[in-house]
């Protein structure tokens, strides 16, 4: 497996509210041969309070992160947090403008020398590692687990800044979860708002918006809502009490995709860190095991039935060939062609039978 080395910006949530994301990300990357080189002495990405006050000050914070990367010779970096990602990308984009860049450089006094890129952990897993290699690493398939992927508002938007996947209907997380063996359900609210930081200025908004997402996830029959953003995770997981008070009664675990990947790779609980979740994921796993057993039984049955059918068909074909050969022998015609033809003629019906059996 080829190794990938890349700079790593954990973001502030990773040290607090999303420790499980941080821990599982490091574990999963290690398993997939991604070497993470943490940016030395990194600082805030310039998120919400900063960029709503002054875009140059916010970009200066981001610029220092990149400058710290340069110190360690790092040009390309990744981050698990979509909000950090957006801020760092926006800063890079704005700094393409020499006037803006000059303002930022005046603040940091450290003009950037290298070319920088910043992507999400999800993006590097999909683009550089790929679902095939992830699938190959799975030791404990998530077969039987019904999940909905929830990307949040920032992972693919604003489209012109993020340049990743479809802005309205992204599929990267779907592909990744499928590779882990899970059953990914169609989820129309993939990029809906979870309430974001409205929990602070307008407390009632967040439970209502998060509730809508949980409600839809329950409606389509999901065992879990899989997320990629610390704030989304908090709003959906931590606030289920408030959401219930608002009338939406759905108890669903909200794991990070990296946690599920860690589980599927067979890593120990301290790396998957499921215990950090508020809503217990174990009932979902129990559901998964039951369903997996059912699916396997069903698969065995279909396989047996198919084998039986194939055997019968082969018998019939052999008989037909014999008959044809007899006839052909009488008429001095070539027997092969006739035999093939009759076998071919039967095929469509066999297929129809098999389809019926599966259904």
């Amino acid at each position, binding site marked *: 497996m080829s190794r990938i080395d890349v700079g790593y910006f954990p973001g502030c949530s990773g040290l607090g509210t999303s420790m499980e994301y941080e821990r599982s990300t490091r574990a999963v990357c290690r398993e997939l041969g991604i070497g993470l080189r943490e940016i030395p002495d990194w600082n805030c990405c310039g998120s919400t309070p900063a960029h709503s006050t002054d875009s140059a000050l916010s970009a200066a914070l981001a610029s220092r992160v990149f400058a710290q990367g340069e110190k360690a010779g790092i040009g390309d970096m990744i981050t698990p947090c979509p909000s950090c990602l957006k801020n760092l990308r926006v800063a890079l984009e704005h700094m393409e403008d020499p006037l803006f860049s000059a303002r930022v450089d005046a603040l940091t006094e450290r003009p950037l020398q290298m070319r920088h890129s910043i992507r999400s952990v999800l993006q590097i897993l999909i683009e550089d590692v790929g679902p095939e290699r992830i699938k190959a690493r799975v030791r404990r398939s998530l077969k039987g687990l019904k999940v909905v992927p929830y990307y949040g508002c920032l992972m693919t938007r604003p489209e012109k800044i993020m340049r990743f996947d*479809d*802005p*309205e*209907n992204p599929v990267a997380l779907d592909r990744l979860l499928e590779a882990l063996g899970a059953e990914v359900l169609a989820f*129309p*609210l993939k990029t*809906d708002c979870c309430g974001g930081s409205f929990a602070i200025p307008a407390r009632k908004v967040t439970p209502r918006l998060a509730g809508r997402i949980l409600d*839809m996830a329950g*409606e389509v029959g999901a065992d879990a809502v899989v997320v990629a953003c610390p704030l989304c995770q908090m709003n959906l997981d931590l606030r289920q009490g408030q959401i219930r008070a608002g009338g939406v009664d759905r108890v669903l675990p909200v794991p990070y995709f990296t946690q599920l990947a860690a589980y599927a790779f067979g890593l120990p609980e301290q790396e998957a860190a499921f215990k950090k979740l508020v809503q217990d994921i174990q009932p979902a796993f129990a559901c998964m095991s039951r369903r997996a057993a059912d699916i396997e039984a069903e698969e065995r049955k279909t396989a047996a039935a198919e084998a039986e059918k194939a055997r019968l068909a082969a018998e019939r074909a052999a008989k037909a060939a014999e008959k044809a050969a007899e006839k052909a022998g009488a008429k001095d015609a070539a027997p092969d062609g006739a035999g093939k033809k009759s076998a071919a003629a039967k095929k469509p019906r066999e297929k129809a039978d098999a389809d019926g059996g599966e259904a």
Partner: protein
Amino acid sequence: MRIGVFICHCGSNIAGTVDCAGVAQRAAAYPDVVYSTDIMYACAEPGQDAVIAAVKEHGLTGVVVASCTPRMHEPTFRKAVERAGINRYMFEMANIREHVSWIGKDVEANTNKAAELVRMAAAKLRLNRELKPKSFPVTKRVLVIGGGVAGIQAALDAADAGLEVVMVEKQPTIGGKMAKLDKTFPTVDCSSCILGPRMVDVAQHPNITLYAYSELEEVSGYVGNFDVKIRKKATYVNWDKCTGCGLCTEKCPSKKSYDRFNEGVGPTTAILIPFPQAIPKKASIERDYCRLFNQGKCGVCAKVCPTGAIDYAMQDEIVEVKVGGIVAATGYDLVDWTVYGEYGAGRYPDVVTSLQYERMLSASGPTGGHIKRPSDGKEPKDVVFIQCVASRDPSIGRPYCSGFCCMYTAKQAILTKDHIPDSQSYVFYMDIRSPGKGYDEFTRRVQEEYGARYVRGRVSMIYPKGGKLVVRGADTLMGGQVEVEADLVVLAVGGEAAAGSPALAEKLRISYDGYGFFMEGHPKLKPVETNTAGVFLAGACQGLKDIPSSVAQGSAAAAKAIGLLSRNMLDSDPQIAFVSVNRCVGCRKCIEVCPFKAIREIDMRGQPKAEVIETVCQGCGLCNATCPQGAIQLSHFTDNQILAEVEALCRF
């Protein structure tokens, strides 16, 4: 030369910011000027008479009028000087209105500038030569490109006036978009009932030759004498033998072809007659879906055809015709709305376009006039209409208003109530644009009588929930978010120039705008002409418009073509290039640059020389600027004439 100068006041339009008498006074001192005066309205009858009188009285041989833009009144004054007995090209105009009086208020600067423009015009006029047009015969036949309602109207009007008409239609049937509509606004009368008879008229008119399933291949020649090549695409059915019985379409085993006419609402067969009233009512094979072409065996249609019309070996055929005028009526296409992720980008079957909805409403459509959800065939109760889909949206490069969506949405809401009395329609709109006879009343009726709920705001998202579609949008009048659970969502998709419009424009040598719509000669005064003589426009190809406007333009374009071809001979524009053979060295550079192939090489006593084909030259002057010898000159815009204008401005 004896030059007369006339400075027009244009009421106060010019005189308000230019001292006209002062300009006239200064002009009197310019070389060769023998008479100079100011005049209230030069273009009005007394003004023209004054010019004519002055010509006679002072024996003028050239006239300068300083007034508005020559793009407006040059033809007027040319005729006037001709009436006074001077050649029409012994006339120059100075544009002191659009280029002077209307763009600044400084009287001193304006007066000075006006006087200089007159000096330039007079300096050029001194080098003008009398030019005489040549006459050539015209072909009294008109080509109509496109068989939609605008093209049909143009063809019938021209044919009724006695002209021969050749109609070329890209699809296997004429009728265009209107044939797909169920009803029309604001009268809610049946579309095919009013269009059908006109389509039949086209088929039966002795003066009209129809080439359906054909496209324009090439155009050469010039006004009055265009040579046109038409590509008749292979239909794989010999239309001389086909009776339109439809037996082949019943027996065709390939039943999952895309139904172009029905906008894909239901599947159809590979060999088909688009719809029962199709003109011509002939079958054609869609090659992409035909089993014979794709799997190598089938041939059912050939077996069942009672007249033996099926011809799998048919090839495209090129037909050549000569025409005197051309009417382009190529219509529009719906914008590809699947660029909108928020509307599902085509993922949800119960989100349909307005044109698909028309086919559902139509009794002759695939659902037999019953509104059914594509997903489960159930009758919808709550129907949401979203207006301005791909209209007025700069983010996808469609900033213009399509103009007809407000009205057809109102109509569709009415029809929904008629078809399903216990249904409820919701219309998300930006603004209701209904300027037209009876239009605004119509949009009120749908709200007041039919109870359609109009919500002013955009839709941000459509998502499925429990067999329904949740439409989430803003209500900007109430100032809040709204969510409507709909059974069916109809997108009022806007229009864009028909696919291939720019390529056709380039074949016709007409201009088109940034969206591919063809440019009219003048936005106000030449709405159906183009800047290429003999080519006219009708319908939505010039800009989106509804049926009444398209029909009116069809008639207008026909009238222009009739007027043009009512004459037996046409005059060629004498402002063309001419070669001075003494200077020409036969280098062929002019032949290479000429966009119209209007220059050919001739042999003059063993020397190669260039010669201009007078009827083909369009007078662009490219050759003039290219010629290293100055041997080829553009009449009326010769090097010396332009330099005389430059010189009039030089200070050294």
